[in-house]
């Protein structure tokens, strides 16, 4: 087997804050093995390899049997969120030294201006060096690039020990010539520096957003490069020859080499894998319109899939910073199992964003946590058995009750169960708000979607969220805790290319647009070559960002066809009017439309796994392992507890019930009825 690994065995590694989830898949037989090992934050490559080895051991395989290694990483995300990236220098056009400090000059809408403090930028002004040079908005040279100034700047940064350099010049999205030349000069003077050019990273207009993206890219570059090199080394040491493919924020994978070039593309790598997994499970279960909700310890990541497609946004943010790369439209809300419930001096009950984290964790973990969390509320109400992770961890019900009683019930004058239900109502409501943002605000009615509840805590909330949203169906995947790893396994190659190319009506320059599309496709094709994607597996699609004249916000629609003609342009504009109406309730068909940015998406397909079918024929009684008391709003009930692994295909049962498994517990409400489908998904329908 080792001699000819072919495309048979693929492994996916999803490194989270606490655990590393690994899924190993046999494409020929549809068999899957999963492993959960502790993450190793001091050197994540160790946890990565431990996880792979644990999974291989179960399958009696060796690393050389692997054909691909897929990976979702939070290295870049955490560096940005925690402000722990590298010391970066930025070369900017003379006159724009404070481009980062000024930003968009606004105070956020939700804050109190008396109390708000502007977040500290990732690069202080003293490391932003001004270079005399200037292009106009058409790319014409107003001031030649001052090459001596670039050399001086590179030497200054080198002497100050700055080894990560970003270059972002004004109007470089039109023509990158000054940036390219500056890059060459920096390399000559400071050959060891890592370098990032804005025209290479994000070739669209708006100088603050482009500067920040370029800076953040090089900010995380040293650590991500080091990390990717370590992973490659670990794999090589273990004699693995499989290529390492890394998930990007756009839901596609690329080779490790591409990630080293634009590491900021991995800013949403972790949650993106979950979205891809949700789409796969939805389709397997026969649902093309789904809302995925991935509830972890500190936050919930929410996405929407319509007709089997997920949306990308160019208006993503990471922490305080705009990151205008194409990203999956994932909405994150700071509510998860570890979110802490508090009552303010004025009597307001809030849940999150403060989290008990892994340590001390919820009060019921018995590690000294004194504040009640969402998990404690579930335990108080009987939604969780008193043991977790297959019996390896005992939960302290009394500690949970005491925390809820002391911190919430007493201050609000409520009973303990009532207070626990209150905590869950608030957290559900926060999540519903976040779901509405990606559904209702995008012109979709959540009642038309099935919910896929995953992440460790997802299956506890799926039922109540569905009720609040009016959705009828909740899908609980076979391994809710490792769905992200599943998403990695089923992912495709993907890269996005974009260029701002403003076309103002009534005279659109079709030839110029055609040339720009061709250039973007040429870039995409070069990438296909680097990734060795076979011709037959390649797909290129064209999109445009459009807006009504005088608007400042663009909508993205597919280009109607491949040619750029007045006819295809008109068809594309029609699609824009229709989308505008869908999203914003009106269209203005008489108002001229501006074509702002052209996009090309390159996708390369990878062999797709087939899911194993679960045996049928078992009985419900065989799966019943326990009985549990649950405090529902309508009264206390004793409900059956089923072992997930023993539920065979075709079995169905009414709620209320609990379904327990190693990585998660599902709460089935009294008004739900569950069927186990042939792949082991639990399909809970509201009666």
């Amino acid at each position: 087997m080792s001699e000819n690994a072919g495309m048979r065995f693929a492994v996916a590694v999803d490194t989270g804050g606490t655990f590393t989830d690994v899924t190993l898949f046999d494409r020929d037989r549809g068999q899957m093995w999963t492993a959960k090992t502790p993450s190793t934050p001091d050197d994540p490559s160790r946890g990565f390899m431990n996880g792979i080895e644990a999974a291989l051991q179960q399958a009696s395989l060796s690393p050389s049997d692997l054909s691909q290694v897929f990976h979702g990483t939070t290295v870049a995300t955490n560096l940005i969120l925690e402000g722990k990236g590298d010391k970066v220098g930025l070369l900017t056009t003379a006159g724009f030294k404070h481009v980062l400090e000024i930003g968009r000059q606004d105070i956020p809408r939700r804050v109190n201006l008396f109390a708000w403090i502007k977040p500290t930028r990732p690069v202080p002004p003293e490391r932003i060096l001004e270079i005399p040079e200037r292009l106009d908005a058409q790319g014409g040279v107003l001031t030649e690039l001052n090459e001596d100034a670039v050399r001086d700047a590179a030497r200054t940064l080198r002497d100050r020990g700055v080894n990560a350099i970003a270059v972002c010049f004004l109007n470089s999205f039109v023509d990158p010539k000054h940036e390219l030349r500056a890059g060459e000069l920096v390399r000559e003077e400071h050959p060891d520096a890592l370098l990032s050019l804005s025209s290479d990273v994000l070739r669209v207009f708006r100088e603050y957003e482009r500067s920040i993206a370029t800076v953040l890219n090089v900010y995380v570059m040293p650590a991500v490069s080091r990390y990717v090199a370590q992973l490659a080394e670990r794999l090589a040491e273990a004699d693995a020859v499989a290529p390492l493919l890394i998930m990007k924020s756009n839901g596609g994978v690329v080779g490790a080499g591409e990630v080293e070039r634009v590491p900021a593309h991995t800013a949403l790598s972790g949650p993106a894998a979950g979205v891809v997994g949700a789409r796969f499970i939805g389709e397997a279960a026969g649902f093309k319109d789904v809302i995925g909700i991935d509830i972890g310890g500190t936050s919930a990541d929410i996405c929407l899939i319509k007709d089997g497609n997920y949306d990308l946004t160019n208006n993503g943010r990471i922490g305080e910073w705009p990151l205008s790369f194409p990203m999956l439209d994932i909405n994150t809300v700071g509510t998860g199992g570890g979110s802490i419930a508090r009552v303010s001096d004025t009597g307001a009950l809030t849940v999150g964003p403060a989290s008990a984290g892994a340590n001390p964790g919820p009060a019921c973990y018995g590690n000294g946590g004194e504040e009640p969390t969402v998990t404690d509320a579930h335990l108080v109400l009987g939604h969780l058995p008193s043991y977790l992770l297959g019996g390896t961890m005992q939960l302290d019900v009394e500690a949970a009750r005491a925390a809820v009683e002391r911190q919430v019930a007493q201050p609000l004058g409520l009973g303990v169960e009532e207070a626990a239900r209150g905590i869950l109502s608030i957290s559900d409501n926060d999540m519903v708000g976040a779901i509405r943002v990606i559904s209702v605000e995008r012109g979709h009615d959540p009642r038309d979607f099935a919910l896929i509840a995953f992440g460790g805590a997802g299956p506890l909330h799926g039922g109540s969220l569905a009720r609040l949203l009016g959705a009828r169906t909740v899908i609980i995947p076979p391994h809710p805790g490792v769905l992200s790893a599943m998403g990695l396994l089923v992912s495709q190659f993907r890269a996005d290319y974009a260029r701002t190319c403003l076309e103002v009506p009534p005279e659109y320059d079709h030839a110029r647009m055609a040339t720009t599309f061709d250039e973007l496709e040429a870039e995409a094709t070069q990438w296909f070559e680097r990734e060795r994607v076979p011709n037959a597996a390649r797909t290129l699609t064209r999109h445009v960002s459009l807006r009504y004249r005088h608007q400042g916000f663009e909508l993205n629609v597919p280009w109607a066809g491949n040619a750029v003609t007045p006819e295809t342009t008109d068809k594309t504009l029609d699609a824009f009017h229709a989308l505008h109406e869908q999203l914003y309730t009106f269209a203005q068909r008489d108002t001229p439309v501006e074509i702002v940015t052209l996009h090309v998406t390159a996708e390369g397909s990878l062999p797709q796994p087939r899911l194993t079918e679960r045996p049928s024929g078992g009985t419900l009684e065989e799966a019943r392992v326990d009985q549990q008391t649950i405090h529902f709003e309508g009264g206390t009930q004793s409900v059956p507890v089923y072992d997930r692994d023993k539920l065979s295909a075709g079995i169905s049962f009414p709620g209320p019930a609990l379904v327990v498994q190693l990585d998660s517990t599902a709460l089935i409400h009294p008004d739900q009825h569950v069927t186990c489908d042939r792949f082991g998904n639990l399909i809970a329908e509201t009666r």
Partner: protein
Amino acid sequence: MQRGNNNMNIESTAQQAPVCDAVTLEVVRGALRASQSEMEALIERTAMSAFIREKKDFFVALFDAEGDMIVGAYRPTFGDPVRPLFEHYPVDDMRPGDLYWYNDCYGSKGSVSHSPDQVFVAPVFVDGELIAFAQSWAHFADIGGMRPGSISPDCTDIFQEGIIVPPVRLAREGVVNEELLRIFYRNSRFPDISQGDTRACFAAVRLGERRIVELAERFRREVITDAFRQLAERSQQAATERLRATFAPGQYRFTDALDHDGQGNGPYKLSLELSVDDNGVVLDFSDSDDQAPGPINYLVNPAVPRAMIAMYLLAGDPTLLLNAGAGRAIDKVILREGSVLQPRWPAPLGQRGLTMMRLLSASMGLVNAAGGDATAANCAYVIYFARGIADNGEPFLLTDGIGVGYGARPYADGINAVYYVAQENYPAELVELSYPARIRAYGIHCDSGGPGLWRGGCGVVREIELLAEKAIFSIRIDGVDKPAWGVHGGRNGGSGRAVVNPGTPQERELEPFSDGNVLVRGDILRLETGGGGGWGHPFDRDPALVLSDVLGSYVSRDAAERDYGVVLKPDDETVDDAATIARREDRPTVDGMFHRGTYRDVLE
């Protein structure tokens, strides 16, 4: 704990339990906030005025059936926008699907305070009963008037500031009166933009209406109404308690002044008095100067000063909404008709933004004077309008807002380079793509932040080159003669200025608050904006922070030594500790609580 919840409920019902329980209240609060965000997102993405879409000069809010605001933005700019309708349209006469509209400042008692701001309000009905109002408000680019952009420092009455729309019923049971809109669009120099903005505001109000109806369907109508009451009460209670804890009984005064009215008259004094005694808490502005001939008059609705003080009091707890309840912590607001804060019809109001920003800072001065720990003064934001004909023959109107420095706080530096809440700049690359103009420089105005233990925020430098044959510029910079004051030993912030073709033989300084400035192709306008006041004695500022400010070009080396007593070594990169200690021995004394440069004595 015994399962005795039901009993507990019965007991608490006896002492008049609220219809909406504590948990539902938070759910409703979250849902109202979410509705507000949705309405805002809709306007932001569809509006066409650059004012609205990039500067985000718009506002949405939800009100109870009485017209009291329950949830809105954290911006004390707005009056009492629903009640003005009642005079013309009694509640009994309102029906589902109605939509009301106005921009009439005097007719709404200052609920809207200059004519470009259009207010749209929809009543919300559940089970045939009116339970709430949804409102949106936005600054339209041009509604006619004397000059493109409608408002100009040259205006001498409100008729020159564009068409006036009294409260009217724009839609009856869902049927829109298109004739009204045709009159309105016909009065704009940019009718297609007006149309887009109107559609955006419409859609937002309808969305808010729908969300409240859904909320009432999810809970009960009585629960929602009770939630409104409790949300107002909670803010009122917190604001009242904090107010009493902050201000000892007594009378407190603070006076500030605007440079002039755009037409050379002035300065204009704003006099604020707070009295706290057993009878209540009263704000009295009646000692302020008489109204101005120029358009800086600010028709203050009493809700605005209430909200200004309340916003200070509520800082630090995001669960407290800045709403009508919070404003009730102040029992009474006294304004004098004929004053610059309560002008008589038809005085011009277009540039009231300056007066509003001054009043906001003056309110913080009053809080400081009354023993609170408020900020130093902010500089008022700066804006210019450029109007002309582009080379393609089309008229253009560039309205470009420029950030300033905000006042230092007792615990932090003031904010550098911001305009106002939720108002964004135009990126240089956007200006160059969309207007015949080029941004030559855009940076921090060095040394403009008022020195202090905490430094005032720095203003901005922006250089604009004109790429059209000719354009008329209107410029609005206040605080040149009377910069933002510092407090508790902190010094005042730096001033702004406007200069054409700096550093050339053609250099000329412009009147900082003026219209009719003609620039021709290739001219460069350099705008420097002012900074915020400092807090605490600058000689007490950590030398490491001063060094960091010098390295970041916020403070010059000379100012570090002069204003902060921090001496740098010749390398400019390290503090000379010995020289700094020696320099700081000669510490300037500070008398009085406020520092406001040369104009201090005039006011006190």
